[in-house]
């Protein structure tokens, strides 16, 4: 056997370099394949076991937490509670266990309210989990920082505000987004203070998230938006326009009209879109005046707005556009004319129901 191997090695050494290379490469590939197959087997086993371990620990932590929460106020029980705190403290030294403990706390915290919920919050302090989260705010790893902020948000730790706000212009957008959510979830409209100092753009995705968080709270006092409507950050303008629309901020109409001349076309269009919702009738005259100098998208937005705001006096202007080349403008014109029609006695009336118009330019009526 040894002799055979020696002969093979000798033959290989005497062969062409390409043959040698291919042989060694094949052996290398075979070795890697064997190792990877073993790794794959272990990985699948581990993933399966991990699920079971997690389920076991979750059950255990839930039981401990319930025991802690429903213990009576006598001496023995206080001792038992202390033991549970120590147990959680010790367990949370392990990363996976800490994750499971936090998940267990949060799950129960979201299911209940009042004193019990406060007790869980208290336990979060007593187990030192809060210290672990706040210390992570200084981490150099962006995902560790973001995870810590999320945890502090979920446990509603308002004390971390000053430390967190320092990171508002963090280079990673995921961290910035977690901070924004922290501020708005915990401080509602006051949390929007970050808009004053935000240097990076607030994406539409972020804006929707923040508006949805605010939407969950009722009877909030809407803050003054004037400053934000003069921001040099276009995404702040865009977000504020959405806020003005949702919270019916008619008081900022002058600032909105001023945005009709903003350098960014998207902001101009968004401002026009808000006008109809707030019923800012002064804006119609402003937009009609320089209608022809505006871009097509703005003109479409203007006519869309006019569907809600047109009055009989606007009929001549609107009618001039019935043959407009743009489909959407023609549709808007039809809708407007359909709402405001002229009676036989030459007086205008506003219809409440619309029927379909037909025109035969570049469009098909499917009937």
């Amino acid at each position, binding site marked *: 056997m040894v002799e055979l191997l020696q002969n093979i090695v000798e033959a290989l050494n005497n062969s062409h370099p390409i043959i040698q290379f291919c042989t060694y490469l094949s052996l290398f590939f075979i070795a890697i394949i064997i190792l990877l197959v073993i790794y794959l087997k272990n990985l699948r086993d581990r*993933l399966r076991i991990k699920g079971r371990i997690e389920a076991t620990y979750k059950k255990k932590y839930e039981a401990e937490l319930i025991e802690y929460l429903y213990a009576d106020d006598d001496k023995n029980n206080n001792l038992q509670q202390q033991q549970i705190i120590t147990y959680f403290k010790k367990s949370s030294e392990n990363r996976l266990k800490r994750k499971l403990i936090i998940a267990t706390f949060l799950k129960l915290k979201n299911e209940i309210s009042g004193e019990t919920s406060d007790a869980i919050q208290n336990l979060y302090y007593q187990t030192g989990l809060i210290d672990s989260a706040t210390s992570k705010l200084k981490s150099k790893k962006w995902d560790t920082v973001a995870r810590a902020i999320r945890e502090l948000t979920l446990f509603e730790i308002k004390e971390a505000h000053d430390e967190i706000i320092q990171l508002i212009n963090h280079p990673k957008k*995921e961290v910035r987004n*977690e901070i924004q959510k922290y501020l708005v979830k915990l401080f509602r409209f006051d949390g929007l203070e970050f808009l004053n100092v935000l240097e990076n753009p607030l994406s539409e*995705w972020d804006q929707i998230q923040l508006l949805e968080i605010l939407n969950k709270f009722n009877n909030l006092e809407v803050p003054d938006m004037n400053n934000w409507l003069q921001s040099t950050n276009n995404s702040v303008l865009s977000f504020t326009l959405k806020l003005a629309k949702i919270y019916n901020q008619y008081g900022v109409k002058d600032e909105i009209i001023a945005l009709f001349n903003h350098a960014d076309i998207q902001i101009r269009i968004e401002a026009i879109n808000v006008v109809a919702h707030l019923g800012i009738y002064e804006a119609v005259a402003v937009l009609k005046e320089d209608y022809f100098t505006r871009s097509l998208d703005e003109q479409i937005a203007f006519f869309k707005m006019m569907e809600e705001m047109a009055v009989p006096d606007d009929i001549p202007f609107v009618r001039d556009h019935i043959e407009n080349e743009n489909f959407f403008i023609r549709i808007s014109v039809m809708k407007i004319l359909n709402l405001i029609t002229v009676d036989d006695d030459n007086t205008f009336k506003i219809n409440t129901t619309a029927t379909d118009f037909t025109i035969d330019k570049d469009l*098909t*009526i*499917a009937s």
Partner: protein
Amino acid sequence: MMLNLPEQLINFFDYIFFGFAIAAISSYIILAIISAFETVNYMKKNSFVNYTEILSSSISPSISIIAPAYNESLNIVENVRSLLSNHYVNYDVIIINDGSKDDTLEKLIEAYDLVKVDYLINNQVATKPLRKGVFKSTNPAFEKLIVVDKENGGKADALNLGLNISTNKYVACIDVDCLLLEDSLQKMIKPFLEATDHKVIAAGGVIRIANSCIIKDGKLLDINFPKNSIVRGQILEYLRAFLLGRMAWSKLNGLLVISGAFGLFDKKIALEVGGYDTKTVGEDMEIIVRMRRYMEEKKAKYKVAYIPDPLCWTEAPDNYKIFISQRNRWTRGTIETLKKHKKIGFNPKYNSLGILSYPYWFLFERLAPIIEVLGLFYFLLLIVTNNVVWDYAVLFLIVAYLFTVLFSIITIIAEELTYHQYTKRGMGKQLIKTAFTEPILNHPFILYAAIKGNFDYYFNKSIKWGEMTRKGMSSN
């Protein structure tokens, strides 16, 4: 020592084939490494995303799902129900009955209480005319549904009519028999809404194979690994392409194709470039290349995004006849697209599109099967002329085979570490077994289909889409 001409030729071809093999292997390794980094990055970032917040928001952007249907009578009612059960708040479903000869339309009318309505259509892209018109439901539960009956014009023509009909900002073009997961739209829309310094023009997701999976009421209930070896091979092939290929191209902003089974588009850009090309069988790739070309020529900052999450499950061919027909079409689509847009190839004016994506597709997708077959002919010639260096030839084949197996196993590990969809006991073994058998059972047919696709493209112009008989996923 001077070599004679035949020896010089043999040396020349040896180096050509060896060089091509090394280049292909290197490109796969580089793409896999980039994919690995990008996937880790994606998973990390995605762990902070809460998709439920976008779900309920009334200001989330509106999306039209456009699904062409041709002779889909068997499953159309179920398929539409699946599309209507998406969790996204702001969307509609436009079914284009593309001149079906069966009772697809009648089934829809009956199941969804449809009535004919007057509907103004903005004819921005020319399409075949309507047949019976536009239908909407009288049942408020199906208010999101619009059904359009038109004369047959092919998938691209049907999608173009969908673009004309849609009044929404984004359009999701899908195959009607695909199973979209309930959170697929919010995952697909995310890159469009996240972009602040560039425009996302299109996004594609991962397509998974649903053969043998249990699907009920438009929901994926149980993932199984099919017994059919052709389907198994395709599962592995899709995993390789999506997990280790497209992720890297997305990072390099070089994606040239979004699967026709499910893609989300910025409707304005799609219309500005003229919609889908009805003259090609590879309309899904062609429109992406055209949109990219358009953006490059406008010198606009843009991206074609890719979502690595499994969002859409589809039925794969389970016999060689349909499998070959499908791959034949893919080959013709690639040839047509690359030929139509040859101007961008190797052209630095088009940045990474011209100097990276196009050359890669040209060399490793367009030319690879041709070079492989030439290599086989060359090998036969060497056998006939008794010029084969057998130990070299055998070792070359072994290295190629082992590399393919190794690459597939790495793909399986990537799948386990990320989405871990094949969780049942024994599936790991089956996947590994497939890694060893797929190069033998599937690859020769892929090669044959690619060569036939080349032949059909040049000498048999009358062939268009080819046959794709569906058995229906719900019946599994």
